[in-house]
């Protein structure tokens, strides 16, 4: 029987979800669960960023701002107005989506593209951080603490397991969104815009609408992650949620795993969380662990961009296609067609 690509993908997806959801039945240790929750959170924001950068080629360097907007909106609503974060979550998502849509639209309107879009979003992130640093209403640079309590109605849990379920569900939702977008009209438009915006427009793709929708969607999902961050770590400040740090992890996970692929960001971030935990196990001392793992992040970005533009997924596909099974070879080629990220190499001049 020919193993079709879409069947393979569906099977993989279902297996992944089952594995994800079965973890709390095997792992009882709070420490391990905390590590897993942090890893899933990282993977989740990587998937969100991949949606804009990997699929649409919108190289947003301001995604930490959406994370921060989500975290701040729900927390402020809870602390000042007693509105449950379950609602605040979506309010934050909407605010982030509105900001994202307006930035994208303004950038499109004034033809700020490519690298300049990256710089504009980077400036937006820094601008927001600078403003929050001085805004007394949100406690300026001190940040906001939440108290640990047992109130499931207000998104507070004493145990780790509920947090695990929530972030797993968020991750699965983001993956499902990516999965369906990939096969939808909008998804094909996104890839067309990434490959060549002018050609896509000349073929009738409404690129401004498409970009605005994708950016708003991604910002919405990222902001939901922001609320999760606030409720899980119980502390937010401009120096953590609005800093460049989450953005760098999004980039590293998505690009090293394989940008513009469904599971690339998850695999990439899984690798880096494993690496982080591995380094923590070595006798290095507190701060050195973070520093060394970041040096490895930087090195992997360089390696990926210079030698392996398709990331780990691309490497895996290459290895699979070397196996001597004909059917699988066809299947993998089918997966690879159309969605392989070529936006790092597309400008290379072909020798005639």
């Amino acid at each position, binding site marked *: 029987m020919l193993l079709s690509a879409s069947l393979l993908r569906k099977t993989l997806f279902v297996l992944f979800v089952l594995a994800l959801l079965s973890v709390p039945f095997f792992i009882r240790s709070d420490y391990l669960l905390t590590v897993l929750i942090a890893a899933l959170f990282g993977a989740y924001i990587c998937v969100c960023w991949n949606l804009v950068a990997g699929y649409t080629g919108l190289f947003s360097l301001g995604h930490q701002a959406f994370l921060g907007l989500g975290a701040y909106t729900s927390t402020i609503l809870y602390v000042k107005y007693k509105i449950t974060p379950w609602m605040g979550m979506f309010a934050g998502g909407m605010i982030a989506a509105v900001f994202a849509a307006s930035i994208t639209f303004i950038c499109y309107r004034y033809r700020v593209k490519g690298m300049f879009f990256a710089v504009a979003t980077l400036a937006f992130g820094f601008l927001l951080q*600078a403003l929050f640093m001085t805004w007394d209403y949100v406690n300026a640079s001190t940040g906001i603490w939440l108290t640990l309590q047992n109130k499931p109605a207000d998104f507070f849990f004493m145990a780790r397991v509920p947090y695990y379920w929530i972030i797993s569900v968020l991750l699965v939702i983001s993956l499902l969104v990516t999965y369906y977008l990939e096969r939808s009209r909008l998804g094909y438009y996104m890839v067309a815009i990434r490959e060549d915006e002018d050609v896509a427009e000349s073929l009738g793709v409404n690129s401004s609408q498409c970009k605005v929708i994708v950016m708003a969607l991604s910002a919405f999902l990222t902001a939901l992650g922001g609320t999760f961050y606030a409720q899980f770590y119980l502390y937010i400040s401009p120096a953590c949620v609005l800093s460049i740090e989450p953005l760098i992890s999004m980039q590293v996970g998505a690009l090293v795993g394989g940008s513009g692929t469904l599971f690339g960001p998850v695999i990439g971030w899984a690798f880096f969380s494993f690496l982080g935990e591995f380094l923590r196990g070595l006798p290095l001392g507190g*701060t050195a662990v973070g520093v060394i793992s970041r040096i490895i992040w930087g090195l*992997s970005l360089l390696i990926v961009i210079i030698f392996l533009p398709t990331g780990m997924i691309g490497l895996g596909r290459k290895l699979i296609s070397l196996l001597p099974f004909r059917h699988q070879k066809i299947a993998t080629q089918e997966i690879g067609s159309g969605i392989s990220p070529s936006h790092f190499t597309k400008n290379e001049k072909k020798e005639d």
Partner: protein
Amino acid sequence: MTTFIQGLTTGILMGCIYAFFAIGFTLVLGVMKVVNFAHGTFVVMGMYIAIFIFMNYLWDPFLSLLIVIPSMFVFGLIVYYIIVKPIREQPLSAHVIATIGLLIIIENVITLIFGSQYRTVTVPYTTSAITVGSVRIGIARMFAAATSLCVVGLFYLLLHRTDFGRAVRACADDIEGAWGLGINVHRTFLIAFGIGSVLAGFSGAVVMPFAVASPSGGLDIVIKTFVIVIIGGMGSVGGALVGGLIIGIVEGIVSALWSPAIAIAAVFMILIIMLTIKPEGFFKKGLE
């Protein structure tokens, strides 16, 4: 009014220094069309080399230039061979990723060696100042600004009055044409990138007598550099000076009248406004 003039003076001095920060970036961008997000971190590297020399030998940062300049040049050459050469022909997103990777590496190597705390260099003239009317001007800042102006001027002369400068401008205009004229484009790029790194490190060392260094300061500098380059045009030395002065003055006045954090926000606002006002096509412009 005094506050305003104070802010303006500081702003003008800082503007010259910002122009110095930007010329290496604008050289690399104008000549080889490579966006170097790590440029700000190169500046920070210069600062930390000066700090290292000051900590161990108590050399003045200006004296430490003797070591900063050659080491940054060699560093630039290595970076060119390992990173810039393979990605030069790839699209800009690849430049962004690769140079952000480089930024992360340098930043964390510095943190590993020096720790993440803020560091300063205290030389005898760090706190001394001259007073004109009611305006205080820091001596260290004046030295740095004067040096910056000199280097920017010399750099202009290098680009416009020497054979190397002509070769650089030829490469910026048309690579194929430059090859045709017998210019070794690869070597020109190599040396231009080396000079760009030297300018970054040089500017970092020069500001050390009054500035505060932290390993993560690079991104801040590179965003300011972007604003300057977008105001002044890619690869233009005169434009960099104008852009630097604009940014410096805005920042100086806003932080004197309101607060430094709002000044940072103002700079980012200028960047966003500049990006939207000036349409695409910065790269059409070569080195003036």
